[in-house]
């Protein structure tokens, strides 16, 4: 019978100090019982001889120095794992909340996970077709990659994530072994509902494990939510050989929660009040993606974060960008022009793209085409700046051609319907059609041989055709 400690020494926000405990270890999970009936759990985050500082996941409301019994559980934060978790819904610390009863699994794992040994990793090379031109063509998603969506409040990042899930799972590479792990940290009820509905409508609900910590749920709980979700993802991927797509939303709430706890602990802040270990903590989450040698499964992460004040240099998107393998940045201006998905092409990037495209994967011209589109679109920006100073009429003929190219590129290449699913061929051909608008000598990023093979000047006044989903452009 384990010892129970009666009472607490101090309570400060979500942190509790307890004195006189014996045999506790660092990172151990403790269980509280309030007034003899309500149960909560917490984690030891500092330990000095017999004094422990404990972080309570459900928050310290209603706890007093007298009404609480504390018991050491003797293990770190663990979660029971089984394949049955797919199709179920859990709270932020992995307890079922869908009235289907507890999980009958004996297999338990530490949610903190362990770093994956680089010599046992397999370098990701297989691309995932999302059917979205801006992603497939320019920032290709690779199986085993971590590719976040940098968004802002009010932008359609949820729709985009949902479309990726739907179309990636419906793609020709789809098989029985595809599943989604969805972790919500501090998101609104409506957002969680939107995802649930989308999963149901697209018929993947049986293949989704949902972990929900909503906006009004305890703040500390969301510090553990992504770890719980990723532990499940790793189990399904590396032990059950499944391809797992993990959606984490919203990483900003996670970082805010960390700042809140850090400040109650009285730690020395680094940037904007965030603790010095924000980078390590974010890395401990993002690095849990990838492929292990000799295993069929993979973990692909799509974290979503809202950039405070749309500022990409804010510590959260900034540190995220240094860890993840690229980013998809959404743009308020494009969104204002009703272009969906409003992907801001220039700052978006997929670091793993270069090895997962080209001959044998997509098509030989993919890399050159993407480089040329990036470069041409960068020039569109210059031409627009110039036009705003001297007026469009005064521009040189080539600058005018760039303006026309930019408009068409945004409307037909970046823009597409939320249901539109383009094949990789369609995306690439569309790119060449757009480049056909520009004189050949402007295309300086393309190898001469590839240029000869694929470049055809598009005649003026001839509309660019997207063979898929007719009407998707005309509808706007």
């Amino acid at each position, binding site marked *: 019978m384990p010892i129970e400690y009666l009472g607490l020494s101090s309570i400060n926000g979500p942190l509790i100090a307890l004195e006189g405990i014996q045999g506790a270890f660092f990172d151990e999970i403790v269980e509280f019982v309030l007034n003899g009936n309500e149960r909560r759990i917490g984690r030891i985050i500092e330990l000095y001889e017999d004094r422990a500082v404990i972080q309570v996941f459900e928050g310290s409301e209603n706890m007093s120095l007298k009404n609480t019994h504390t018991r050491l559980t003797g293990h770190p934060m663990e979660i029971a794992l089984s394949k049955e978790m797919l199709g179920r819904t859990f709270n932020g610390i992995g307890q079922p909340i869908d009235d289907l009863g507890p999980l009958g699994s004996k297999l338990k794992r530490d949610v903190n*996970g362990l*770093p994956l*040994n*680089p010599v046992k990793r397999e370098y990701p090379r297989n691309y995932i077709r999302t059917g979205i031109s801006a992603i497939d063509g320019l920032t290709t998603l690779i199986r085993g990659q971590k590719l976040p969506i940098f968004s802002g409040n009010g932008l359609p990042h949820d729709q985009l994530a949902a479309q990726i899930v739907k179309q990636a799972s419906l793609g020709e590479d789809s098989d029985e072994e595809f599943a989604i792990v969805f972790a919500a940290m501090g998101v609104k009820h409506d957002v969680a509902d939107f995802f649930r509905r989308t999963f149901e409508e697209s018929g993947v609900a049986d293949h989704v494990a949902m972990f929900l910590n909503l906006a009004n749920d305890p703040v500390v709980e969301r510090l553990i939510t992504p770890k719980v979700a990723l532990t499940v993802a790793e189990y399904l991927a590396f032990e059950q050989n499944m391809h797992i797509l993990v959606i984490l939303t919203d990483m900003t709430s996670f970082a805010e929660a960390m700042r809140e706890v850090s400040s109650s602990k009285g730690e020395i802040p680094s940037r904007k009040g965030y603790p010095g270990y924000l*980078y390590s903590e974010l890395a401990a989450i993002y690095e849990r993606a990838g492929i292990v040698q000799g295993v069929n499964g993979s973990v692909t992460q799509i974290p979503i974060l809202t950039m405070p004040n749309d500022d990409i240099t804010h510590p959260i998107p900034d540190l995220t960008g240094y860890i993840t393998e690229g980013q998809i940045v959404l743009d308020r201006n494009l969104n204002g022009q009703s272009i969906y998905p409003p992907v801001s092409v220039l700052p978006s990037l997929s670091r793993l793209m270069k090895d997962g495209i080209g001959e044998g994967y997509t098509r030989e011209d993919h890399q050159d085409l993407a480089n040329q589109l990036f470069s041409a679109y960068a020039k569109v920006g210059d031409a627009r700046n110039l036009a705003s100073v001297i007026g469009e009429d*005064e521009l040189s003929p080539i600058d005018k051609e760039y303006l026309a190219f930019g408009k068409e590129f945004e409307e037909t290449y970046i823009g597409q319907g939320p249901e539109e699913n383009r094949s990789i061929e369609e995306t690439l051909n569309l790119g060449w059609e757009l480049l056909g608008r520009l004189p050949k000598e402007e295309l*300086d990023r393309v190898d001469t041989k590839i240029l000869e093979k694929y470049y055809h000047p598009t005649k003026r006044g001839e509309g660019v055709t997207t063979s898929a989903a007719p009407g998707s452009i005309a509808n706007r």
Partner: protein
Amino acid sequence: MVNRTGKIYGINGPVIYLKGNTGFAMSEMVYVGGERLVGEVIALDKDRTTIQVYEETSGLRPGETVEASGGPVSVLLAPGILDNIFDGIERPLEKISESGGAFITKGVSVDSLDEMKRWETHITVREGDYLHGGDIFAEVPETRAIVHKCMVPPDLEGTVVSVVPDGSYTITEPLLTLRTGSGEERGIPMAQRWPIRKARPVSQRFAASVPLVTGQRIIDTMFPIAKGGTAAIPGGFGTGKTMTQHQIAKWSDADIIIYIGCGERGNEMTQVLEEFGELTDPRTGNPLMDRTTLIANTSNMPVAAREASIYTGLTLAEYYRDMGYDVAIMADSTSRWAEALRELSGRLEEMPAEEGFPAYLASRLSAFYERAGMMHNLNGTDGSVSIIGAVSPQGGDFSEPVTQNTKRFVRCFWGLDKSLAYARHFPAIHWLSSYSEYLTDLAPWYQDNVSPKFIDYRNRLMALLNQESSLLEIVKLIGSDVLPDDQKLILEIARVIRLGFLQQNAFHKDDTCVSMEKQFLMMDTILYLYKQARALVTMGHPMSVLKSENIFERVIAIKYDVPNDRLEMFAQYRRDIDSFYQRVLEKNA
């Protein structure tokens, strides 16, 4: 000294406290708890010892024992370092995976280097020789590319009393016996240990005089780094820091590459492992891994080991320098190392300076970069350690403390630019914000080994780029149509320089690495085109006529169209420029 131990009193993340005066020494390596986690003493006072632990501390309990090891944190130096991948404290990840599987578990005890493996050894000393510290006594072919030279530890000297014959030996077997001045006889094996925080001694430091040729045009021609030099590559995320480091690690003419992945992505380390195993060194024809060692502390590995990983890499580099090799260190990224310092400093509740970084950030950075240099070694050989450090400034803002302090101690600054990266102009090293202080030091080398005109050409290219930048200011206001033709020509030539020369395609088989000779001929062709075109413009031929010829595009495409082994093709380009000149003259006669 034996069996000094202490009891854990407090635990706060990677920092633990012991009560009382334990008798431990500063920077001593200790073993923590029942799992024997590796740690290092970082602060001592009468009633408290502070230790940073190089592994995950979850599961530790107050009261567990901490045992002193008797020496500072050090690395084992012997054959087997090359073609290998280690964690931050020189534990081979391959061996860890054999015992622990795909994930790195705690408290794994593995030998740094294979102590069972027998190496083919050739002894180079004889009985009766007097050996000083650092002297070479045996040679071992460590990989196809590199001969490992076994040296007497720097703090030892004496007469060889006995020596084994040539044969195969393990790294721990004594190969010779040395009688020191005090008459004591010591067996010397191949392996020696050296503390990571202490620079290995040398006899003399030289001034930089030879460039580290990287095959990257913007570096070799515009902002060269010397062998034994220091360079920083700062840039926001996605600007190509890692890519630039990979390119230098692949193609530079250093003998040995130490690649330190400090707080970076796991997949990147895997990529280096895979790619360097397959690619061959253009100079020796051997796999690149044969000259490479990787130190991997990915961003999710323990933070204290991240702090150590930089020093581990440096010490390995200095060891190979002592053999007379030119070693280049890629440190990706020094910002993560600085952040590890900040994190530990915060846990120790030290008074922070700028942006939470500790006040000793600048002195640690300078101590790190000063370990680079072209040296005359104790044993009479010459070797160098060059350091190329990536810096990841917060928010891409170069005014933050790590970038600013780094700038004070490096002599080469390759500033990566976001707008170039957005336009996919790679390498995104911006020619206006970058600089190299080695240019004057290296000028004689370029004049003797490439061409007497080299430095002049390089400066003319830079001048054109600077003129372009001021012209672009005007263009931004009034458009390019109103410029006079001679200025339009400058814009056009600068475009040729940017696209045809500065921009380099790492994925193109010819363009990924370019010899100094080709770099010079490219400059020569561009400047010849400029000279002829300017003559035409001066005669009053409009730029629109000049541009209607495709000669500018042809010169831009030289990097793809002229294979590296067919440099005689440049003569044809000169003829083409001449005929372009004639055509324009005739057309407008």
